[in-house]
């Protein structure tokens, strides 16, 4: 197990290193310097700024300095346009809570609803609740979260004036929570459907297993047998999809945040792309990569813990 963990960690560190390197060279490859279109900047000031950012040194030296900065000093570069001079790391740090709050709330809502819908569908397999739920599942999985966000913003918020149009970052807790309902809803449709579909499959398989028959034979009522045996066993594999789902919600939240102007990482990425503040873009992307790599690592390790047969190299064998 120790060797397995080491291997996985090594792989993920390597991935992260490659992403950082690609990000570095991409930054340098983007056509035009950071201050090319700034008429207010005197040539001397420009040169000084460029020297301060080490942009005048040869590329390999810049690369080493860049990597060293990230590893040793947590220096991800300074913002160029959005808030010039402020460390990109600090900007990201203050954006993280909003994004995390949104994503965790969405996860907390999707799990029970998804489990409920999945259980209903499995118990009423091939009857009308199952049919209805499977139609809804296809709908929620297919329609992108930004379409849901647009719909929610137009009807409940704009036409019926039930909710605020945009995220309320300054109001009191109640107002803020109310303004979070729509973005969280928009993010949750997909995950609910994913959980529901997965649980339904698992539960149907478990319900037809022999130990369920045994549970009934020894005198448990159907409801008891389902609650004590089938349901529990079907929920364990859910652990496998929850963590990757979190990355997915994060991806979707990039756009949903922008639509509702939630001051999170997503809005930051969009703003920095639009203002061509590439250091912030890259830092935000690296943050995003870090989260995603960590998720994959956690999933791989927990696979190994839950089922020791799945180990490095044995994956994919059927």
């Amino acid at each position, binding site marked *: 197990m120790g060797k397995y963990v080491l291997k996985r960690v090594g792989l993920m560190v390597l991935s992260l290193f*490659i992403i950082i390197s690609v990000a570095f060279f991409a930054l340098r490859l983007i056509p035009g310097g950071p201050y090319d279109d700034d008429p207010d900047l005197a040539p001397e000031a420009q040169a000084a700024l460029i020297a301060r950012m080490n942009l005048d040194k040869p590329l390999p030296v810049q690369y080493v300095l860049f990597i060293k900065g990230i590893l040793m000093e947590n220096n991800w570069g300074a913002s160029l346009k959005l808030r010039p001079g402020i460390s990109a790391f600090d900007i990201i740090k203050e954006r993280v809570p909003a994004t995390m709050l949104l994503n965790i709330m969405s996860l907390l809502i999707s799990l029970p609803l998804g489990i409920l819908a999945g259980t209903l569908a499995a118990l009423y397999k091939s009857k009308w609740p199952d049919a209805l739920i499977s139609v809804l599942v296809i709908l929620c999985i297919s329609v992108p979260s930004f*379409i849901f966000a*647009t719909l929610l913003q137009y009807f409940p918020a*704009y036409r019926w004036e039930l909710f605020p149009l945009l995220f309320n970052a300054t109001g009191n807790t109640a107002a803020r929570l109310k303004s979070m309902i729509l973005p969280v809803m928009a993010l949750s449709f997909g995950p609910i459907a994913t959980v529901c579909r997965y649980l339904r*499959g698992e539960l149907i398989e478990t319900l037809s297993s022999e130990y369920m028959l045994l549970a009934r034979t020894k005198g448990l009522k159907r409801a008891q047998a389902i609650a004590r045996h089938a349901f529990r066993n079907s929920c364990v594999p859910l652990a496998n999809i929850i963590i990757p789902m979190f990355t997915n919600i994060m991806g979707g939240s990039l756009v949903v945040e*922008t639509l509702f102007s939630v001051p999170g990482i997503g809005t930051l990425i969009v703003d920095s*792309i639009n203002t061509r503040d590439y250091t912030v873009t890259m830092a935000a992307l690296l943050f995003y990569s870090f989260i995603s790599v960590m998720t994959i690592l956690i999933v791989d390790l927990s696979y190994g813990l839950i089922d020791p047969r799945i180990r490095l190299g044995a994956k994919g064998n059927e």
Partner: protein
Amino acid sequence: MSNRVYDLKNLPPEIADIPESRFREVPKADHVMDAEFETVARGFFKDAMFRLSRNKAAVVAFVILIALIFMAIVGPSMSPYSFNQQFTEYTFMPPRVQGLEKIGILDGSYTLKNRALDSLGDSSKYPNDCIISYSNERSVRGTTLVDVKVNYYKYVGCEDKYFWLGTDELGRDQWARLWRGTRVSLIIAFAAVLSDVVIGVVYGAIAGYYGGRLDLIMMRICDIINAFPNVVICTIFILVFGSGMRAMILALIVRGWIPTARMIRSQFLRFRGREYVMAAQTMGVPNRALIFRHILPNSIGPIITRTMIAIPDAIFMESFMAYIGLGLAPPEPSIGTLLSRGQRVLMQYPHLTLFPALTISVLMIAFNLFGNGLRDALDPTQRGLD
């Protein structure tokens, strides 16, 4: 019946010298006991097609897909205006369709908010009898304000024109742009997914066929690339190479081939040791033929399924990039760029968002339904799992 084994070359005389007269023809039985096939034998694909055609949802999805693809091809030329033709004086026109306007939908009407009631009779402000009705009468600081519903085409003076889905902020025909955008999105998705499949099949086949150390290294490379988040790759690609179709397709390929490669590899691990493969190898069939002729055809079902499931993902990713400001460079429309532009004027002109949103939703649902149907048809053991 004795079970003695005779040596055919020197049979004992009592067997070798049986006179011909002792041989007797066995009369043909009146009826054969074996059951005769009453149905025509069906091959794998015929069987799969049969199952697919029984799946109502998949058939409907298929018809919708064909219709959408047809519209993506001919739609832009159905409109008298090109996707890039600007009518700067006719911006944000509401939708208006011949025939339908008579029954009151898509009739080119638009509600102007907060207009003074007194000015309604002023024909310089409201020319050509364009007013249909007014509502929501209220008094603000002494003036009576109303919301006026007008025939917008009469209002701006182009009653002879019909923009079926309205026009955008530059006065470009939304109908032409929508179908052109659908075409662009579909092209991006198809190109990316086809490349994914080709790369994935070759890569997975090599890894799975040769196995051992090579397989280990190749799969580790997959693991590393798979850890790159799609959003990050697409953003970097488009920042560096500019927002063209080619950059978008390349960006989608970077990670897209990995699921196919993994799937093909596991298929190869399964079939690599089968007797028929060993037999072919013994007879001197070269590696390439073994891979592509003998083992790969087993995976044709999963490959088709995987392709169908990957297409909506690619369409989604393209729109997603447009939303975060990295869509195709203008004037080329895609569903994503139409949506993100429509979003900016959602409150005033919802029709600019409505039609692209409907199109992408229907497209995604149809692809998903058809993909599920194909999977069930090609691999019946998976049926009913979700």
